[in-house]
């Protein structure tokens, strides 16, 4: 019996996710679901991103965390409209939470909506939120074994970002091996190396975002 209920929950989630997707895509808004372990650098990368892109385009951010508004407070300093969603202990965001948050955002005027999911390499990968792309941030201090140990999230993500490359000299992490593993699990996935600390590699990431925003706009025409 329980099994049935859970399948229904996911079916319901997918339906709402699809309606969010269609609604925002019709307005030419690029929606990104930003995933990764706790501490991989999702919020830091977003802060650096906003410093550069907030001048060029209108960006809204939905921050998902179990508790606190710490991440939203950080983002609010960078000129983006931001909403904190607290899951009260829940390990991932679900589409109804996004639908509710959208009713408090002037999303129609946005170029891009970023959803920073709860830090977790497992559960968030299962729940569509209406995004056009999932992006996973993997910090190099997490180790080379992570893509093969957590394959679903990498299969689902069109882009993987290897963050904290400023720390490469202090670790045994191999970027080459990570690229090999990620593209084995997900042929066609893109991989970028960045440091949200030093700004290394940031330009390629910003260009990727600009291209997605352009693509979303063109698709809506």
């Amino acid at each position, binding site marked *: 019996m329980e099994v049935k209920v*859970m399948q229904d929950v996911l079916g319901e989630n997918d339906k709402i996710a699809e309606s969010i997707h269609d609604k925002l895509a019709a307005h030419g808004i690029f929606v990104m679901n930003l995933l990764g372990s706790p501490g991989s650098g999702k919020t830091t990368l977003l802060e650096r991103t906003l410093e550069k892109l907030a001048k060029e385009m209108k960006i809204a951010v939905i921050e998902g965390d179990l508790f606190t508004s710490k991440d939203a407070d950080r983002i609010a300093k960078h000129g983006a409209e931001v909403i904190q969603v607290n899951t009260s202990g829940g390990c991932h965001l679900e589409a109804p939470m996004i639908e509710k948050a959208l009713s408090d955002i002037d999303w129609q005027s946005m170029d891009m909506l970023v959803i920073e999911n709860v830090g977790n390499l497992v559960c968030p990968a299962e729940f569509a939120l209406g995004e056009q792309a999932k992006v996973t941030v993997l910090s190099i201090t997490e180790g080379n074994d992570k893509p093969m140990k957590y394959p679903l999230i990498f299969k689902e993500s069109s882009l993987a970002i290897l963050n904290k490359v400023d720390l490469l000299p202090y670790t045994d992490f191999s970027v080459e091996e990570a690229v090999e593993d990620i593209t084995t699990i997900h042929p066609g996935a893109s991989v970028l190396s960045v440091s949200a600390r030093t700004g290394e590699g940031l330009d390629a990431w910003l260009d990727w975002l600009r291209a997605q925003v352009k693509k979303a706009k063109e698709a809506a025409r």
Partner: protein
Amino acid sequence: MCKECGCGQNNGNTRLQFITEGYTEESAKTVEKALLGLPGVMYVHIHWHEGETTIDYNPSKTKMTEIIKVFSDNGLEAGL
């Protein structure tokens, strides 16, 4: 699904275990890589000497015929 907390999909993964004869070290690697690239395939382990092959996959995302094709493409027969 996340087995820890029970969230997510239930019609999750199935584990296939079988013996495939005729692997070389190289073809085992090629097969492993090709299988891992399929949509629902999460885990592949091959002991090429014994031919012992383990595949964890989601049948709703990848059909058995697609898995078998990976073997035939490499001149192997999956002894299911």
